[in-house]
């Protein structure tokens, strides 16, 4: 049994794990790169060890150094957080080999779910539906793809293997138009990624991304904690999540059906710890397995809010060999929770990352508000790590209350120094489609623009004019003052001693 935990991560998630450990009375060990000496996770941990230069491959991805520090500090367990080494089977294996508890799944579960083809085959064998397609089947020629297309059915998507951002993606409605579409998709993929390989996938129209949180212990108990709605995304990056999903809503039978399938998928790989099964759900409530994330997720707090389960503490409990604190019957969802990811990105400029020093930050507080963040006033946002700087999570009795509370909290949240996605969330929460809960995974990319959203809102151009003019006016006066003060009539030395007296 361990009582000291090394957190092999940084940022808000390292802080989140440290908090759980402290509440459980466990000692904590942080690691930091040159870029993170002043980071919150270093300041909150009991011990902290330097791990290398800023690039992740030289620091947070160095398994050898992490294991060495674990041994040196006497940490009996390692929590990987998310990202970095969280889904690397060889790291889970290396911990096991060194006699250190990995707070997460076993190597074979990570490896199986990390391989698209293997994951699809494994869950299919367990009776879990997958999106029909050829993903993970290796390099296929046009002839092979044309032969497979009718089996998948139309409409279907041609997608780039190296893809992202819709590049090299084509929608095919019939076999006749496929050869031309394959050619253009390959060309575009080749130009964008230097890899012209494509695969086919059945087009799920109006697809939503809904995922199920599962917990599994080492005694064979597997439960699910309901769903999270994650359809608000851009370039496959989630931006905003909520639980429950407005699409599932009161349909408890549908929720339990998806939940039980998720449990089966986890059981298929003898899963242990917290994990998430991602589904694509069509408008007729058919759902298909997308992938399993074999780690703690960024958006886990919304599930914590509605179920009352502390997922990180359960992970630690499971790693200590204890049974789950809950049975499936004890899990119920209360109210509604939402999470807005606050990224250091400029929503007015194509979500371009924004780096710099956080000069000032004022956190939203008050009823039903939780902020998980790793930054504070004076903290430097560097280009080395991902742009997530904070997660704003709210709870309300109903979805309507949660939306109102999120709006209020976003108004309160002030971050000065870098651009953030706060204005994006403010606009999102005013969209009637969002409020009605009728959106799919294409919503942000196809039906949303910051400019249009801004135009729809009640605006105060004359107030903006006053603000801009007053600030510009002050700047002009300040500049003029600098020029004038150079023309002092007294000698500089005399002036200096006066200046000193004033500022003493």
């Amino acid at each position, binding site marked *: 049994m361990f009582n000291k935990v090394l957190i092999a991560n940084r940022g808000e998630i390292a802080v989140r794990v440290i908090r759980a450990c402290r509440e459980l009375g466990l000692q904590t060990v942080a690691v930091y790169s040159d870029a993170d000496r002043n980071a919150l996770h270093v300041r909150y941990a009991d011990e902290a060890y330097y791990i290398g230069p800023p690039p992740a491959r030289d620091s947070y991805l160095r398994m050898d150094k992490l294991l060495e520090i674990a041994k040196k500090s006497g940490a009996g367990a390692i929590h990987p957080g998310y990202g970095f080494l969280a889904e690397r089977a060889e790291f889970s294996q290396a911990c096991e080999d060194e006699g250190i508890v990995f707070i997460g799944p076993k190597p074979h579960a990570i490896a199986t779910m990390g391989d698209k083809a293997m994951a699809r085959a494994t869950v299919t064998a367990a009776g879990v539906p997958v999106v029909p397609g050829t993903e993970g089947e290796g390099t296929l020629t046009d002839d092979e793809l044309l032969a497979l297309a009718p089996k998948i059915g139309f409409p279907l998507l041609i997608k780039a293997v190296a893809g*992202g951002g819709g590049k090299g993606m084509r929608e095919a409605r019939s076999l006749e138009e496929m050869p031309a579409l394959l050619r253009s998709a390959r060309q575009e993929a080749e130009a964008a990624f230097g890899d012209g390989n494509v695969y086919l996938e059945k087009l799920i129209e109006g697809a939503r991304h809904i995922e199920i949180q599962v917990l599994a212990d080492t005694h064979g108990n597997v439960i699910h904690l309901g769903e999270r709605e994650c359809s608000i995304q851009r370039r496959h990056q989630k931006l905003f999540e909520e639980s429950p999903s407005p699409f599932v809503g009161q349909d408890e039978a549908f929720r339990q059906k998806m939940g039980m399938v998720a449990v089966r998928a986890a059981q298929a790989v003898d899963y242990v710890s917290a994990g998430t099964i991602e589904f694509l759900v069509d408008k007729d409530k058919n759902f298909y397995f997308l992938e399993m994330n074999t780690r703690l997720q960024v958006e886990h707090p919304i599930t914590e809010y509605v179920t009352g389960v502390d997922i990180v503490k359960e992970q630690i409990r499971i790693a200590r060999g204890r049974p789950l604190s809950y049975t499936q019957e004890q899990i119920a969802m209360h109210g509604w929770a939402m999470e807005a990811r606050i990224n250091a990105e400029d929503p007015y400029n194509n979500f371009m*990352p924004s780096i710099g020093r956080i000069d000032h930050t004022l956190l939203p507080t008050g009823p039903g508000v939780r902020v998980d963040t790793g930054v504070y006033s004076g903290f430097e946002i560097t*280009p080395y790590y*991902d742009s997530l700087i904070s997660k704003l999570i709210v709870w309300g009795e109903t979805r309507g209350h949660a939306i109102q509370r999120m709006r209020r909290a976003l108004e309160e949240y002030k971050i000065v120094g870098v651009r953030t996605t706060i*204005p994006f969330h403010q*606009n999102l929460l005013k969209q009637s489609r969002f409020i009605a809960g009728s959106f799919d995974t294409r919503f942000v990319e196809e039906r949303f623009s910051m400019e249009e959203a801004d135009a729809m809102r009640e605006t105060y*151009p*004359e*107030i903006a004019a006053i603000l801009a003019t007053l*600030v510009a006016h002050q700047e002009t006066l300040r500049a003029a003052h600098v020029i004038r003060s150079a023309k002092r009539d007294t000698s500089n030395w005399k002036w200096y001693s006066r200046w000193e007296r004033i500022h003493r």
Partner: protein
Amino acid sequence: MKYITTVNGQEFEVEILDEHRVAVNGEVYAVDIAAVSGRPLYSLLANNHSFEGYVYAEEGLWQVLMGGTLYEALVEDEQLRRLRLAGGGGGKERGPFLLKAPMPGLVVAVPVTKGQEVKKGDVLVVLESMKMQNELKSGKDGKVEKVKVEVGQTVDQGQVMISVV
């Protein structure tokens, strides 16, 4: 002091009457402005209505982010405005466009070559930073004059990568 302030294309005559009074198109507002924890976050009381906004300069314009809405404001005093109008304005598109790295990063694609004709908005460089691929676009129509980076190269913030004339 009288200014002509253009907000999102709409012109306002803003006259600063004294420290606590401003006239907008002749309508007088009682105002009080305070910088919150230093600039650029300002609290503005206009006729006792409380507003809060970020105000920062970018490319000669004032960006005002208020209540989740971004306003672009051009603030000119009467003299400046006369000069600009006399000069024909819009000198921005003349001269070469220098694509500078907005942040340190790794060049993952350069989809243009020297001498190529490009349109404003065409992607010149894809730069990876913060684990994201960012498309950096041309600010003008023209011909690619110089390509100073190649795929796989890391660049510093502000480094000129491509010029378009």
